[in-house]
């Protein structure tokens, strides 16, 4: 996962900027609806559960479980060093994120395993929220 120069990095929009600036500060920020309390990810203009215009940014615990994963051997682009593992993580708050699973040998990866966020600085502006096996079970 080290040689990643040239991979397509996020270009934050007005809508997504709070998430990416949070990542820069080591906080996993997600939108929560003040009306229905639902957690909304990826960033949206209104709540995707109840349509209320009542989303606020809150910090996620950054802890969750591995929902699904795939170890990739044919890279999207040559800048991605193979093999790498793409994952869906289910956060404690109930929302799902696409991410990379790092710091885990492929033979030890299991659906359901506890994971926690690990921010990897990619540029001045962008730190990517990857996930690794949890140090202590949550």
């Amino acid at each position: 996962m080290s040689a990643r120069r040239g991979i397509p990095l996020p270009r934050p929009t007005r809508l997504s900027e709070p998430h990416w600036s949070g990542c820069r500060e080591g906080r996993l920020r997600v939108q929560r609806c003040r009306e229905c309390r639902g957690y909304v990810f990826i960033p949206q203009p209104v709540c995707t559960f109840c349509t209320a215009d009542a989303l606020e940014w809150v910090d996620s615990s950054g802890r969750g479980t591995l929902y699904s994963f795939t170890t990739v051997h044919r890279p999207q682009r040559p800048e991605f060093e193979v093999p790498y593992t793409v994952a869906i993580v289910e956060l404690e708050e109930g929302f799902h994120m696409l991410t990379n699973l790092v710091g885990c040998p492929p033979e030890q990866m299991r659906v359901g395993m506890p994971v926690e966020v690990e921010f990897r600085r990619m540029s001045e502006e962008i730190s990517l929220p990857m996930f690794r096996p949890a140090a202590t079970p949550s």
Partner: protein
Amino acid sequence: MTRSALHEVAIVGAYNTRQAKTLGDVREVDLVLESVRGALARSGGLGLDDVDGLNLRGTVSRLHAREAAHLLGGRPRWTGMALGIEAVLEAAAAIATGQCDTVVIADAQAGQYTDRAATSPWTRPGNEFVACWGLYTAAEFALIARRHMHLYGTRPEALAEVAASIRNHGASNPEAVHYGRHVTPQDVLASRLVAEPFHLLDCAINSEGGAGLVLTRADRARDLDCTPVYLLGGALERQGMAYVTAPVWDRYGLSGRWAAGRAFAQCGLAPSDVDVCELYDPFSFELIRQFEAFGFCAEGEGGDFVMGGRIAVGGALPTVTSGGLLSFSHAGTAQLLQKVIASAQQLRGELPEALTVPGANVVMTSNGGAGALFCDVMLLGRERP
């Protein structure tokens, strides 16, 4: 019998140009025009002068229906913009409501995939929450497959059985890009890994080519010297932004169930009435999922359902008899239309004899899958409902 305005419309011509990994210097516009002429030539009597509706498209050239109407003489015509099953439903609605009588739909792609160091351009996402993880279409569908394997114990051998079965259909189809290339399930499992659990032979091929389809009023179809194929039912199902939202099995695993229910209700049929499935096959697992979503078997039983030759020609439910995206062709968005074309060709007896299912009356086809958060379905038949 349940009625639907779709029953007023018939497919009377279906045609594929030559399909190949690359077609060299062929222009897309020529592929589109060949698709139009080829499809009309198989209608048993219709010519360009009969066509009063168009939906023509080229991926790289960005040819669209209004430009194509100009190329074809600029006469007043209805034009459609949709792709695949959606395009057929759009055209059928135009015919059934009297906006036009005869529509040609054609789509082609050539010259799109040139950077072979990266995956195909249409598989690479641009979204800020997707691209940075190295995701692309195979990985999206792999995330769906892996969750199913975890929940239900679905085995890699079941995926390999699907891939080998479909690829062997293509191997017997002289028009398929992979004609002559028979594979065993062991070959699939031994091929290199792409995105686990998918091996290379679990994945759709890349190719170029064109495809055309002619629809007309069912009462006119009777007067033509051809075997009409009737639209029995169809529906769209879209759940969100493909390749942006995480493909979470709990939310999207049964994508297409709602649309299938709508399509079956339009003609009073059930999965047990379906003779052949020309389902979307971008990756082997997607067939297992669709058999569950559409009600051919219970949730979690798709892996067992596909074993033992059931889905091969000669089995109880021949599936993707043309060779599909795994062997016949995957020519950009033309592949969506080619699902309907394969269905029509099967019912008209236009596929090679070895792939023709004797007595087939009802075919189910689909576009899109769970990894893409959409699944459109259509039912076609030899008998007008």
